[in-house]
């Protein structure tokens, strides 16, 4: 029973990382209907930014996190302006290929700058096990879960209560109508990319601290899983990404612990397939009627 609880907490921690990364996918998809395949790489870049900041300045964890998130936000907006903006009217699959190209570009950029060997992420969160009854929980796990939930609540507040957040929702609902209402669509899209990328960097920093490694291809698998999470919860929906992230994290951890670590990826994707077949729009998605 204790082992099971321990696994649940691990799952929660992995899931919260997936959830913050999934938020970036889902926000971008919601607003410009683009699967931003470069998001996993932004997460990787976020981890590298944190790595460099720690080594160059030795700042405390929270400062490192903020610097990394700000840099990732700048990177995300730059990518959007350079690569995606010119293709906004092009066929959607061209934009998809551009996103894939961008993802390869960032991966290889990291490879050229930082080399292929994994860098060891210093323990910027002091590692102390905390005992709750019979359970032993690491500070890293607790920080991961609390920080993720804090930023999700913050994002929820931002989207629901503030003006830019409201314009974000308006643009994702109906772009043309929101232009008529005087919303600056380009600015809103840039804000979305900035927030999504910052959250991606948060995921990247937490991931690299949890697994103590930073390397150029680290974004691929978590990126793909987070994307699966976003689809599972209902792509384009912020609560969906959070739910999907936790579900995927839980399934993966439980499958690794009790079934087989080799098959865990197949189980994750298998569940995605089943959910999509039963409810194509994801767990929280609404069915849209097809208009002739």
């Amino acid at each position: 029973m204790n082992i099971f609880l321990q696994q649940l907490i691990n799952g929660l921690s992995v899931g919260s990382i997936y959830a913050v990364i999934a938020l970036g996918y889902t926000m971008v998809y919601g607003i410009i209907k683009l699967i931003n395949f470069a998001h996993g790489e932004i997460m990787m870049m976020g981890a590298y930014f944190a790595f460099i900041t720690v080594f160059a300045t030795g700042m405390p964890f929270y400062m490192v996190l903020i610097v990394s998130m700000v840099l990732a936000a700048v990177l995300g907006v730059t990518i959007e302006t350079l690569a995606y903006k010119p293709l906004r009217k092009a066929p959607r699959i061209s934009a998809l290929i551009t996103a894939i190209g961008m993802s390869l570009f960032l991966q290889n950029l990291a490879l050229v700058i930082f080399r292929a060997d994994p860098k060891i992420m210093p323990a910027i969160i002091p590692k102390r096990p905390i005992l709750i009854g019979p359970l032993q929980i690491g500070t890293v796990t607790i920080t991961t879960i609390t920080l993720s939930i804090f930023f999700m609540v913050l994002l929820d507040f931002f989207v629901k209560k503030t003006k830019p957040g409201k314009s974000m929702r308006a643009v994702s609902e109906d772009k043309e109508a929101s232009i008529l209402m005087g919303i600056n669509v380009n600015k809103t899209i840039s804000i979305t990319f900035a927030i999504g990328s910052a959250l991606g960097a948060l995921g990247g920093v937490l991931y690299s601290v949890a697994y103590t490694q930073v390397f150029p291809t680290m974004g691929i698998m978590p990126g793909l899983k987070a994307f699966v999470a976003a689809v599972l919860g209902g792509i384009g929906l912020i609560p969906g990404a959070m739910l999907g992230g936790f579900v995927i994290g839980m399934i993966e951890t439980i499958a690794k612990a009790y079934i087989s670590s080799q098959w865990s990826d197949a189980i994750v994707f298998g569940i995605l397939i089943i959910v999509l077949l039963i409810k194509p729009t994801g767990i929280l998605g609404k069915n849209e009627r097809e208009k002739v």
Partner: protein
Amino acid sequence: MAKISKKNYIINVLAIILVFLLLKFFISNGVISRYYLGIIIFICINIVLATSLNLATGFLGQLALGHAGFMAIGAYVSAITAISLKGTGLPNTVMLLISLLLAGIFAGVIGIAIGIPALRLKGDYLGIITLGFGEVIRVFINNIKMTGGAQGLTGIPRISNIDNVFWITVVVVTILYTLTNSRHGRAIISIREDEIAAEAVGIQTTKYKVMGFAIAAFFAGIGGGMYAHYIAFLDPNTFNFMRSVEILVIVVLGGMGSLTGSVIAAIVLTILPEALRDFANYRLLIYSGLLVIMMIFRPQGLFGTTEFSMSGFLYRLRHNQLFSSRKNLEEGD
């Protein structure tokens, strides 16, 4: 009309034979070294993979991100068949053809099995579910005994060579070309243009969607088989998501719905990373950068939905219109 197409036919056959003879001539002359020969074989394999995916994504309009899965199935089935046929003393070409046919059929059947449920979805969701299937296939191959698992499969007879690979590629592209210009092909294209309208005029959309998807899987299996018999070693992780993406990039860059576009793009995108070898570490950086730039400046791909035609080219050459603007067919309504 019949006369013109007959003329086209003769011109195309002559052009292909000419290309083949030139290849043979350069190989016997030693102009094409073993290294270049390998690149040419990879070009052929990529042509088969890209044109088959173009049927599903370009002509049928269904985004598929799991093509490497079918390629993997084909590669493994073909390799295992050839390994078990090794002792029988069959000539290499016969052995290759049997293995490839079996590989294609196997991949096609799995294509039908995946296609029937998956093709109910549309657009990005279909892309994601095919991605999921592709990954499941890869993990499956990685974890069963028959395929050698993660250690890879060795001892595959190396029976792909430039002659058979070239002609198999020609046959595959010809079949796909005739298919897309047939009654069935027009039905498939009508689904891309407007599925509801196609259904309204009596086209069985589900049947054609599954058919197109299965044929694409069939040829992807053959492409995988050709790959297996050239490389002679299979590692399940080469058939990952990025491999599917590589094939999709060829299709989109060439132009969705243009088989000749896929052929040209397969040639360009196979040579490009090799030609950039001098840049060592910067190779893939430049490659991906060029990809983004090409997409920004030509989002509809090199050829759009038009086909390159030899006779049209000759006509333009005679009338000095080589660089006059081509009338592009626009997507959608």
